[in-house]
């Protein structure tokens, strides 16, 4: 009789208001990617180019929320993933993009598109209806949906990401000790 094949866990990943640094760190687990691919298959992710998320076991999200599309994608991940992991400083506290939060959005747009140096003639604040609308402030993920696990760091090291994924896949509570837990 055939031995039953263990179902691979489905993992989706996305970058919201992030820089893809956390995804680069995921690739930094190097040859452990082969071990990972024995255990998981990727659903929606920049690595697969699948555009819409299906039912998944784990959602891996880098970046915070700076526009309405980010919020939409986050909610889609929450309703399709059993476990959501906020990865990196931006997902956890807004990070670099949130450093605009003490300025009013109209002032930022004015400065960038109307009054800064070196603008092309006729430069104006973009208002194409296809463009997502910026939020007044950048928010971390946990302010909008429940997040199950967090991997801090800017970006977290490949080792930290691997430790959390390996702990989860082995069915333990993830633990990062000294040297792996970093906020910078």
């Amino acid at each position, binding site marked *: 009789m055939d031995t039953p094949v263990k179902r691979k866990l489905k993992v989706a990943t996305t970058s919201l208001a992030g820089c893809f640094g956390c995804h680069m760190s995921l690739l930094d687990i190097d040859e452990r990617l082969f071990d990972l691919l024995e255990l998981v298959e990727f659903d929606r992710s920049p690595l697969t180019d699948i555009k819409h998320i299906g039912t998944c076991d784990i959602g891996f999200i880098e970046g915070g929320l700076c526009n309405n599309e980010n919020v939409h994608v986050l909610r889609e991940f929450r309703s399709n993933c059993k476990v959501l992991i906020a990865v990196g400083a931006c997902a956890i*506290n*807004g990070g670099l993009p949130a450093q605009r939060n003490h300025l009013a959005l109209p002032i930022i747009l004015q400065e960038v598109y109307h009054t800064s140096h070196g603008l092309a003639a006729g430069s104006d604040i973009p208002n194409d209806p296809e463009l997502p609308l910026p939020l007044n402030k950048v928010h971390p993920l946990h*302010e909008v949906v429940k997040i199950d696990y967090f*991997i801090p760091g800017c970006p977290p090291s490949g080792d930290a990401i691997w430790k959390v994924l390996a702990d989860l896949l082995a069915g333990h509570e993830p*633990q990062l000790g*000294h040297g792996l837990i*970093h906020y910078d």
Partner: protein
Amino acid sequence: MSEKTFVLDGKTIPYAEGQTIMQAAMAAGVYIPRLCYHPEFKPHGSCKLCTVKSNGRQAASCTQLAQSAAVVESDTQELNDERRALLQMLFVEGNHFCPSCEQSGNCQLQATAYALNVMSTHYDHFFPDRPLDASHPEYLLDFNRCILCSLCIRASRDVDGKNVFGLAGRGIKSHLIVNAQSGALADTDFAGDDKAAQVCPVGVILKKRRGFAVPIGQRTYDLKPISAMPDAKES
């Protein structure tokens, strides 16, 4: 006469009359998390991170005197959960973007959060608007990261005899001020060799043009956890 002792997390700790639980624990090499206590200054008892249970009652160990035969708990799930919540509140009340903070890796707030495995900020962020004071030629004040520990106030008043810093406002409106008519550091007699320039546990009082001289990843608490060196930091 037999030595006076109490029991901290199952370990017998000797103490001298008049010592606080914190002082006795430090002398015995036991780490109790703390932020507003510094061994060179009078305790302030405000951050509550050092809270322990002594004979079942909660007390700030930096102000509570050691008592003979007391049973003291510190490293317990309950107390550490409360410490994590206090740390998370400190993070969301200010603006702590560690990757761009010059103090990252030397910061006691960050290192304490590492030691207690704080993985997220948990609460909603305030994102307050707190302008910098870059008026002084040698030092910068980044109020975004102030945790109101009052160490700079105590150092300036009690050691430097200058009274450069103060606390103003109440409750959630409490904030650090500079004692000058203009409110600017440049208009005080603050100097780089003041004790107040050395004591900030976080990244508020920063020497200019030094920023990233030691790269991130090679700093005090990158190398050792804070429990191994609670007060050391690059000065």
